[in-house]
C-alpha cells in the first residue's frame, strides 16, 4: 500500500514558536559545541587504563560534578564506585535520576548529591521506598527537576548524537512537563506540537560491564538499558568490570562491543561489582541485604551505624563483600541467578 504523501514543503518563512513550559532549572549545558570542544581534546590514546576504584574516584570525581549512573537501579549498577564516592565524602554532586533506586539510596545516605534530574528516585521498585531518600527530597536537601525515563534516555541520545536537543512526544500536557526544564515547539514540517528535550552531557558516568580489556573496550550481556548512549554522552567514563579479558577476547566477537576504548578514562576489575544488585547471567540481587538497607534508612542512628559498618569502616568494596557473607553468599546468589536455587 502506498500512502499519498501530504504536502509538507515549507512555503514561506514563518516565525518559529517556542513555549518554555518547564519552570525548573537545567543543571547541565546542552550546547553541543561546548561538548565538541571537550571531546576534541579527550585522549584517544590506546593505553592500559587499569587502576583502583580509589584512584579513579580521586582523579575523576570532583566535588560538584554532574553524574550519570549505568544499569537500572538495582541491576548492573557500579556499586564499588558509588561506595567510594561516599567513603571519600564527595559533596554537591548532581545526578541523573534515570531509574535511580539503590544508587540514589547510596548517594543520599552519604549526603553526596544536592541536585537531581528525576525520572524515578526514592523507591526500590517492588521492594518499597527508602525513608531517608524520601525525607531528603521532602525536606528540600536536593533540588529537583522532573523528567521521565524515556526523556532522560533521549537526552543522553541527543548528547551521544552531538546535537543540543531532541524532539519527543512524552510529558506534554502534564505537571511532569511543568516542573521540568523542557520547551514546547512546533515541528517545522508537520506543524505538530513536540517537546524539545535538551541534550544531557554528564561530567562523568560510571558503568559496570561484564567484560573489558585494559584499554576499556567493553562488552555487556543482556539488556543495555540506556548505557549505549550514556557512555557516549558523558565527558568522562569510569568502567568497572566483572572480568578483565585479553584484547583478543574482544576482537573475537567485535559485534558485542558496546563501548570502544576511546570513550573510557579508567578501567577497574571488580568481581561482584554490581552487588547487592543483579548482574545478568552472573548473580541475582541480594534481597535480604537490600531489605537491611531499607531498614537502616528508617532512622539517622541506624543509618549511621549501617554506613559505618558497610562503607566507612571497610577499606574497599572487597571488604564490604567479605562482611556480607563473602564467597558463600556470592555462590548462593549465582545459584539463584541460574535458577538452581529459589
Amino acid at each position, binding site marked *: 500500500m502506498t500512502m499519498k504523501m501530504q504536502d509538507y514543503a515549507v512555503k514561506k518563512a514563518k516565525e518559529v514558536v517556542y513555549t518554555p513550559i518547564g519552570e525548573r532549572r537545567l543543571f547541565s549545558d546542552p550546547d553541543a559545541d561546548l561538548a565538541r570542544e571537550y571531546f576534541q581534546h579527550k585522549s584517544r590514546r590506546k593505553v592500559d587504563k587499569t587502576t583502583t576504584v580509589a584512584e579513579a574516584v580521586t582523579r575523576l570525581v570532583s566535588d560538584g560534578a554532574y553524574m550519570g549512573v549505568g544499569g537500572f537501579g538495582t541491576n548492573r549498577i557500579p556499586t564499588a564506585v558509588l561506595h567510594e564516592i561516599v567513603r571519600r565524602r564527595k559533596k554537591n554532586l548532581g545526578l541523573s535520576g534515570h*531509574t535511580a533506586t539503590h544508587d540514589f539510596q547510596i548517594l543520599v545516605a552519604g549526603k553526596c548529591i544536592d541536585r537531581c534530574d528525576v525520572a524515578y528516585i526514592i523507591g526500590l521498585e517492588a521492594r518499597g521506598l527508602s525513608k531517608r531518600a524520601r525525607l531528603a527530597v521532602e525536606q528540600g536537601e536536593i533540588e529537583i527537576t522532573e523528567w521521565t*525515563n524515556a526523556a532522560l534516555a533521549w537526552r543522553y541520545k541527543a548528547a551521544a548524537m552531538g546535537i543540543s536537543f531532541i524532539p519527543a512526544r*512524552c510529558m506534554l500536557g502534564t505537571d511532569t512537563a511543568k516542573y521540568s526544564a523542557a520547551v514546547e515547539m512546533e515541528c517545522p514540517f508537520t506543524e505538530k506540537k513536540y517537546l524539545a528535550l535538551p541534550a544531557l552531557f554528564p561530567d562523568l558516568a560510571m558503568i559496570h560491564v561484564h567484560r573489558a580489556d585494559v584499554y576499556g573496550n567493553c562488552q555487556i550481556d543482556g*539488556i543495555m*538499558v540506556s*548505557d549505549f548512549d550514556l557512555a557516549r554522552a558523558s565527558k568522562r567514563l569510569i568502567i568497572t568490570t566483572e572480568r578483565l579479558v585479553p584484547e583478543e577476547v574482544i576482537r573475537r566477537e567485535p559485534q558485542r562491543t558496546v563501548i570502544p576504548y576511546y570513550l573510557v578514562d579508567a578501567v577497574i576489575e571488580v568481581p561482584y561489582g554490581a552487588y547487592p544488585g543483579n548482574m545478568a547471567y552472573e548473580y541475582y540481587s541480594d534481597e535480604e541485604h537490600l531489605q537491611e538497607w531499607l531498614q537502616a534508612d528508617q532512622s539517622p542512628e541506624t543509618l549511621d551505624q549501617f554506613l559505618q559498618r558497610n562503607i566507612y569502616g571497610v577499606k574497599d568494596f572487597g571488604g564490604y563483600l567479605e562482611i556480607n557473607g563473602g564467597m558463600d553468599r556470592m555462590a548462593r546468589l549465582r545459584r539463584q541467578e541460574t535458577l538452581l536455587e529459589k
Partner: protein
Amino acid sequence: MEYNRMELMICLASRFLEDEKLVVVGTGAPCAAAMLAQSLYAPNLMIMFEAGGIGPLLPSMPISVGDSRTFYRALAASSMPEVMETCQRGMVDYTFLGGAQIDMYGNINSTMIGQNYDRPKVRFPGSGGANDLASFCWRVMMITVQDARRFTNNIDFVTSPGYLTGKGAREAAGLPPGSGPYKVITDLCVLGFDAQSKRMQVESIHPGISREHIIENTGFELLWSAELLASDPPTAAELKTLRDKVDPYRYIIGRS
C-alpha cells in the same frame, strides 16, 4: 470458588488483553495479568519491559523491570530507547500504570502529595516510565484498589496523562491521537471511559458490591454505562493457572 481481591483484579485484567498484541508491563499485578492472559487467552501476546526485555519466558515474577528474569530466554534483550521508541512509534497496544491518585479523566499522580512542590507532604518516585507509556500506548489500563482518597478530582500532581481535561485535550496538548486510558480495574468494579465526555464510567460491578458502596468510595461523580453488567468472577481455570503457574510463591496474590 474462594478468591481474594487481588486474584479478582488480575483475572479481570487478563481478559482485556487480546492475542497477537504487544504489552509493556511493570512488576506486580500487571505482569501477573499478562502472564495469565498468555497462558489462557492470548498465547501470542508479546510481553515487553521498559528496561529492554522483549518476549521472555518468565521463570518467576521479576522484582525489578530490569532484572534478569525480564529477559530470561527472551526473544531480545534490548534497551530502554528501543522499547520506548517502539511505544512512541505506535506499535505497543497495551500498558498498565499505578499511582497514588487518579481523577475522572484518568490522569494519574505518582509524584507527590501536597500543594507546595518544593516541600511536598509526601514524595513518591515520580514518573519513571509511566508518563511515557501513558503518552504513547494505545490502550492504558490501571489495576488498583478503589477508595475516595485515591479516586479524586483534587489530584495534587498530574504525573501521567489520561484524557487531561476531556475530549480533544490530549490531541491539543500534542499527544498522539487515538491513545489514552482504556480500563481501570478495581476491587469494586471495572471502569471504562465515556466516548463523548472521556469521563470515567462504571461498566461492570463485582459480585457482592453495591452501587452505593462504589459511590462512597469514589471522590468524584461517576458515569454509569447504559449496558451496566455484573463482573464475571474468576473461573476455576483462571485461579488454578494464577496460583500454580503464574505466582506459585504468592508474591502478588498474597498481598491482598
